[in-house]
């Protein structure tokens, strides 16, 4: 069982993330935590100094964090985006597509299930925050 | 009386608690009195039943008859397809449901 799953080679940030509100006031932080009701776009002016964005999923059924991650990637953010909280193996494939590259679930994940989930889809239909080529582009290459 | 019901995890069939097992026929349901929560928690975690819940019923002609129509329909089957109910040959069974 794994507690944190990271798909990055760089060193993980080793201190706690701060809330969006305190981040905007506190200029020296480089890790921030987004709650579902936070607007990810508030971070856009500060992306250069951020190394880690934690996106909290208090319940897996609240899908706002998927949009938050994509918005950050669309704004050019290349640091870590980590899904924390009620993160289940059946969600991590889509999270990865939306730009998450680390997962810190409340309940540890079975590595075999993780591997199966991430290798599930041979192709994808849509453009998203990952580098996969959509089927409709493959058809017209 | 309080009886327990749920659906079989694998088949989805409606089942009733007979004191030691989950069975298809409500005739075998027993009054669990104040033990409903304990039995349901134990049985759900053992995956012997899916989404169990307690039902208020009235003993009528020796059989528990749920007080709510929804559970009477569950106990028997769709009223519009008597051929698919648990008692397809009983012409009076509709009166038990409605």
């Amino acid at each position, binding site marked *: 069982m794994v507690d944190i799953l990271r798909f990055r080679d760089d060193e993980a940030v080793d201190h706690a993330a701060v809330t969006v509100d305190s981040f905007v006031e506190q200029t020296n932080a480089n890790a921030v935590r987004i709650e579902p009701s936070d607007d990810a776009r508030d971070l856009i002016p500060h992306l250069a100094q951020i190394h880690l964005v934690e996106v909290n999923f208090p319940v897996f059924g609240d899908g706002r964090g998927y949009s938050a991650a994509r918005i950050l990637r669309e704004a050019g953010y290349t640091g870590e985006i980590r899904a924390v909280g009620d993160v289940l193996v059946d969600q991590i494939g889509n999270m990865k597509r939306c730009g998450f590259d680390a997962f810190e679930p409340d309940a540890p994940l079975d590595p075999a299930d993780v591997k199966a989930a991430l290798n599930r889809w041979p192709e994808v239909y849509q453009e998203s925050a990952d580098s996969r080529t959509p089927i409709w582009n493959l058809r017209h290459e | 009386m309080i009886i327990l019901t749920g659906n079989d*995890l694998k088949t989805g069939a409606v089942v009733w608690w007979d004191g030691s097992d989950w069975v298809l026929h409500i005739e075998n349901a027993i009054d669990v009195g104040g033990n409903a929560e304990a039995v349901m928690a134990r049985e759900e975690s053992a995956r012997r039943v899916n989404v169990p819940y307690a039902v208020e019923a009235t003993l009528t002609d020796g059989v528990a008859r749920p007080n709510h129509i929804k559970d009477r329909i569950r106990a028997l089957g769709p009223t519009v397809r008597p051929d698919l109910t648990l008692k397809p040959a009983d012409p009076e069974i509709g009166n038990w449901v409605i």
Partner: protein
Amino acid sequence: MYAYDKYDQAMVDARVEEFRDQAQRRLDGKLSEDQFKPLRLMNGLYLQLHAYMLRVAVPYGTLNSRQMHALADIADKYDRGYGHFTTRQNIQYNWIKLEDAGDILADLAAVEMHAIQTSGNCIRNISSDHFAGAAQDELVDPRPYAELLRQWSSFHPEFMYLPRKFKIAVIASDTDRAAMRLHDIGIQIVKNDAGELGASFYVGGGMGRTPMIAPNIREFVPLDQLITYSEACLRVYNRYGRRDNKYKARIKILVHELGAEEYTRQVEEEFAHLLGQGIEPPIAELGRIKTFFTDPEFADGAKTVDRSDPDFALWVDRNTHRHKHDSYVSAVISLKPVGGIPGDATAEQMHLMAQLARDYSFDELRVMHTQNIVLPHVRIEDLHALWTALDEAGLGTPNLDRIGDIIACPGLDYCSLANARSIPLAQKISQRFTANGKEDTLGELKLKISGCINACGHHHAGHIGILGVDKKGVENYQLLLGGSEAEDTSLAKITGPGFSEDGIVDAVETAADVYLSQREDGERFLDTYRRIGMAPFKEALYG
């Protein structure tokens, strides 16, 4: 019609394996029911009153005979010999075992079908005009756009956990046969002044507990921005739709609370941003899809029928629809026999409909949201042979858009959300109006029944609507009048206090009698209601 390529097939095959794995993890106890429920729902598997229920997607309601045969085989092999066609142009089976679900999905995948996103808080099956590609009045066939949206919405990574379910309809004629403005997004394909095709977006309609008619938020989205604009609509909803109360979570509430203007402003802002992200499919993809929806080889033939058999003539008058080619019609197979269960079809009937589609309709069938089946392209000279075969199988009821052509949700006979039964009412009403001979004189009268506030039976949109409620453990029925799901969209209003099961059947007859006594030349029930208002009906019902 659309055919899968290797990519589409690989996706549904992967889904079969994913769901097999998920079901196995549930059976093994690795997933709790709370965790499994959203996963099974995204694959159309519900736990209903008597068993698991599986809803199979019929994208934009279009099927070929091979697919219909496969649906019949599933009914026989895994269920109890029948299926139920739904108001979302889908089919559902009532007696499914979790253990069999993976095998059923594999059987579906073998005929290019699936149950993907037929439930759950995600984008559901895209619905469309059941006469698409055949109707004389359409601008273009709307289904290529629906297919493009199907691909875009399938497994969309950002939109699998929306605040609530999300339904999209696409039409391409001014006549609305798909209840377009009662959808989360309704799209009408239109032509602008320059003669270019584009999409007119209506957002925030819906039925349910708070029915609303969608406002138009943009009159013309160019076709090469269709997906980007849709994505913007969804992203604003995903971020700002209410999640604190499931009854206020549909997009209609967001649009209503923000106001259409502010919602539109936010969408336009997101749209402007997304245009720079390159998410739109190549326009050639729409071109590729369109090649699957070209006309079959229509041939000139007879333009009229021999009307010497009055039963046949009646069926032709009632159950056929004008086709763009004058030697053809679209023929409606009624799944509403008098006293029957609306939308149910046996495996034998499905096999027969499949065979008839092959013989008489270029291998194509459509599921209507009114729970009937269409053979879209029937030669007028074949109509008698078709009718004869249907009539022998109990599929020839001549009641399209009549009071006996009732939409009814499964209600408390099957559904765990229902408060009251719907089907027995439909049976009694169709029997009553056949017995008293009034079905004929009433003309067009759309009656729709829901067994609970969720409105799967579209009661808000019925000329006459019935809503079942639970009154202290006893079924009770509210009567509504004046709804329409057509291009003259309106929401029905409640007449007053509810009725018992027998009382509501009498009440429907009372309302019908008010119409018959007050109608002027050429007026339908709905027209008379709109002219004279609720008062005369109330007076007759409660006075």
